[in-house]
């Protein structure tokens, strides 16, 4: 009887030890202590009259000035401001907030409490039919006191990137669905992507990932990595009920002149 009580006590203690870290697991939609990890909720301000959120994908550095750090995400996350929230509407210097206005619950405007970066550059999206867009990407200037190079629940990405091939196992950490695993279904894909009222854009050389649970609205901007090696494969930006569309990470690096930090 005495030993049973002892065993029960030990088991209870072990359970508590296991539960503490699970209970402390970070929610990507929460306000994060600075420096914030990547893979968490961000948005621009002003987003009024709407509120929205995307994901800060990873920290990158300029190829031309390695000390200058940026947060990498989508044009339709960091390159947009209200009222339209269409890509390329945010001027340089637009404030990037963490968490995004959707997760704050309202647009606080330029409130230093939430500031993590300033929009620097976005690659314009061409909405004309037959256009050959490669990336939906933008970078925001940041400093190491605001943001870290680790991705929430994944860790830092490797400097080498991986070339997506059909059947490749991939992983991502994003604002809405957290860490999820998927499989590359198609590469070199030419695809039409709807940007609500802004238009429909044609993208080329995209990668399609399944299943539908791999991502959802708000995961845009997440970096997709090869599962075994943690090498970046792509930048998540769109999806349907059964698929996720990601940009080839090489085109993201080259079009913005950045590299993994």
């Amino acid at each position, binding site marked *: 009887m005495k030993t049973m009580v002892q065993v029960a006590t030990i088991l209870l203690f072990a359970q508590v030890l296991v539960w503490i870290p699970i209970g402390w697991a970070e929610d990507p939609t929460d306000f994060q202590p600075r420096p914030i990890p990547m893979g968490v909720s961000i948005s621009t301000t002003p987003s009024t009259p709407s509120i929205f959120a995307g994901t800060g994908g990873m920290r990158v550095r300029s190829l031309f000035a390695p000390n200058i750090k940026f947060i990498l995400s989508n044009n339709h996350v960091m390159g947009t401001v209200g009222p339209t929230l269409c890509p390329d509407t945010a001027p340089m210097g637009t404030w990037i907030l963490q968490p995004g206005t959707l997760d704050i619950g309202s647009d606080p405007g330029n409130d230093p409490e939430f500031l993590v970066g300033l929009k620097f550059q976005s690659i314009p999206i061409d909405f004309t039919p037959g256009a050959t867009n490669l990336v939906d990407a933008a970078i925001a200037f940041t400093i190491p006191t605001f943001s870290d190079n680790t991705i929430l629940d994944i860790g830092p990405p490797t400097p080498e990137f*991986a070339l997506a091939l*059909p059947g490749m196992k991939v992983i991502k950490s994003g604002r809405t669905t957290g860490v999820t695993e998927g499989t590359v279904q198609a590469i070199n894909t030419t695809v039409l992507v709807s940007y609500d009222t802004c238009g429909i854009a044609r993208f080329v050389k995209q990668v*399609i990932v399944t299943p539908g649970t791999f991502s959802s609205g708000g995961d*845009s901007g997440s970096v997709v990595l090869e599962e075994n090696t943690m090498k970046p494969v792509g930048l998540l930006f769109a999806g*349907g009920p059964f698929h996720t569309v990601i940009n080839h990470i090489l085109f993201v*690096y080259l079009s913005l002149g950045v590299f993994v930090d």
Partner: protein
Amino acid sequence: MKKRILTFSMILGVSLFMVSLAYTQENIQKIGEGVVDTQRVEELKAVQARHEDGVMNIPGVVGIGIGLTDDGKDLAFIVYVERLTSAMKANVPDSIENVPVRLIESGVFKAY
């Protein structure tokens, strides 16, 4: 002075491109081993380029790319369609230049 900057940035651009190519090559070999024939992928890219516009012009088609056949043993073209109807099956060819075509219902792709 302007000319110098221009030359410098051109050299930088070319060398960056070469470095990226080197990375790509390395990765192709590593991932390609026993998984996907990367040589064949390149051939299929050329075929895709020739027929892409024709397929994309079919109403309801939202994408075309290179993937695997149903059994996963060979490469195939994957055509994404908004809704997989019998009319759609009739409109999209079963194969393009002897490469099998897989029709997959995807709904509409939305930036999110």
